[in-house]
């Protein structure tokens, strides 16, 4: 955030980090291009290269627990994928190794590794976007790039409503426990305990939505003469990067379609 002083002087006093001068659309296009590159080939070396690039991007920006959480879940799934495809992939022919009499096949393992690498490329590149852009930055930038302010409001208000809803849920759960709702041990008891929490929660949420909607109308949100908030961020090379990355995406999609047609 800029201080009042920097606003007066017009020049940012704090030196921006390299990832702060890249605009959100460029980062999103980067996710698209990296994904397309990863899907363009089954070459494991290329996949490893892409993972390395994405990891470096993350290492030189910020590391956050959200990326690790996303990685944790996917790594587990990739693990099960390696086992299932290694054992049962339809094109399995060459036995690579055997554990306790169970044979793992080369073809299935390579197939699962390729898929796993693609997932990792997407998660790591998205992780870069997640940790380097804030909600307010996205909102301001999306509006500046021409998205209607109503759509931006819908997108961004979710991020502000969620913590409020989680608080409401905990409050309702506690209240139901105090009133002595069932002990939630068996599956049926658990399912039964969902309704007394969800009904008040949904009604409360929709009630708050109604109140919010009325206050939006009263504040003249539909007013056509609304002033657009100007962004305080300075982005570098946005146009060039957008054109370059979009061009690459079109090329990759075109090449994929071309090779599919020729392959048939």
């Amino acid at each position: 955030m800029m201080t009042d002083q920097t606003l007066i002087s017009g020049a940012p006093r704090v030196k921006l980090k390299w990832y702060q001068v890249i605009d959100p659309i460029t980062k999103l296009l980067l996710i698209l291009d990296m994904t397309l590159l990863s899907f363009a080939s089954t070459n494991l070396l290329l996949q490893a290269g892409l993972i390395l690039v994405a990891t470096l991007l993350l290492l030189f920006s910020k590391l956050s627990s959200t990326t690790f959480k996303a990685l944790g879940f996917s790594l587990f799934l990739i693990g099960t994928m390696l086992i299932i495809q290694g054992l049962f992939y339809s094109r399995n022919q060459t036995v690579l190794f055997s554990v306790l009499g169970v044979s793992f096949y080369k073809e299935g393992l390579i197939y699962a590794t390729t898929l796993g690498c693609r997932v990792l490329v997407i998660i790591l590149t998205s992780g870069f976007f997640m940790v380097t852009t804030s909600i307010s930055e996205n909102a301001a930038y999306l509006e500046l790039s021409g998205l209607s302010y109503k759509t931006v409001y819908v997108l961004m208000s979710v991020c502000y409503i969620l913590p409020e809803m989680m608080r409401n849920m905990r409050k309702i759960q506690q209240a139901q426990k105090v009133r002595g709702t069932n002990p939630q041990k068996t599956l049926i008891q658990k399912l039964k305990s969902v309704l007394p929490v969800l009904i008040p929660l949904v009604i409360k949420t929709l009630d708050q939505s109604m109140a919010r909607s009325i206050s939006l109308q009263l504040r003249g949100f539909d007013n056509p003469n609304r002033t657009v908030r100007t962004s305080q961020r300075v982005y570098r090379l946005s146009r060039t990067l957008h054109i370059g990355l979009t061009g690459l995406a079109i090329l990759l999609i075109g090449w994929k379609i071309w090779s599919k047609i020729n392959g048939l």
Partner: protein
Amino acid sequence: MKTEPIHRTSMWKFKLSAATMTLIPAAVGINYVAKALAEGLKLPVWLGSLGTFLASMLAGPVAGAISGFINNVIYGLTLSPISTVYAITSIGIGIAVGILHANGWFSSARRVFISAIIIAIVSAVISTPLNVIFWGGQTGIAWGDSLFAVMVANHAPVWLASFTDEFVLDILDKVCVAYLAFFIYRQLPQRMVHFFRDDK
């Protein structure tokens, strides 16, 4: 009966009014919280489409589809990037619920069951190609995936195994969510139902 169908011609009418603008984030929030609740109680279902169901029932298929889409985009950009691609499934669910509700298929407990099956089919049909592209056909849920492994081991085609894996999980989830949405919708105050419907 509170769940009288919306007039057919008004089903696809959509305007991003102040009411829908606040309903969509609320629906996304409900999806998120219901999913967290199911995970917290270790239920074998996701419940993550409850908000999409309610938005479709209250404001029509377009509002439901937008809620589903935004839900997966936000979820993808904050927690699990791959779930962004399943936004297409959520759009399908939103549209299916909206059409079924507008045609009176959420008016009685028996009809809700049939609706749930149709929605589960829609969801599984859209999700299967995505599962095959990204996860080799798996869904990431242990018992569904064990079914997948057994089928693939017995030389069943990957598409069929993946569809079965997805469908058995979807049918359980969508039946639970459809009944939850049905009961909750009936509990909603009339002023609320009319507020989100009439404002279009």
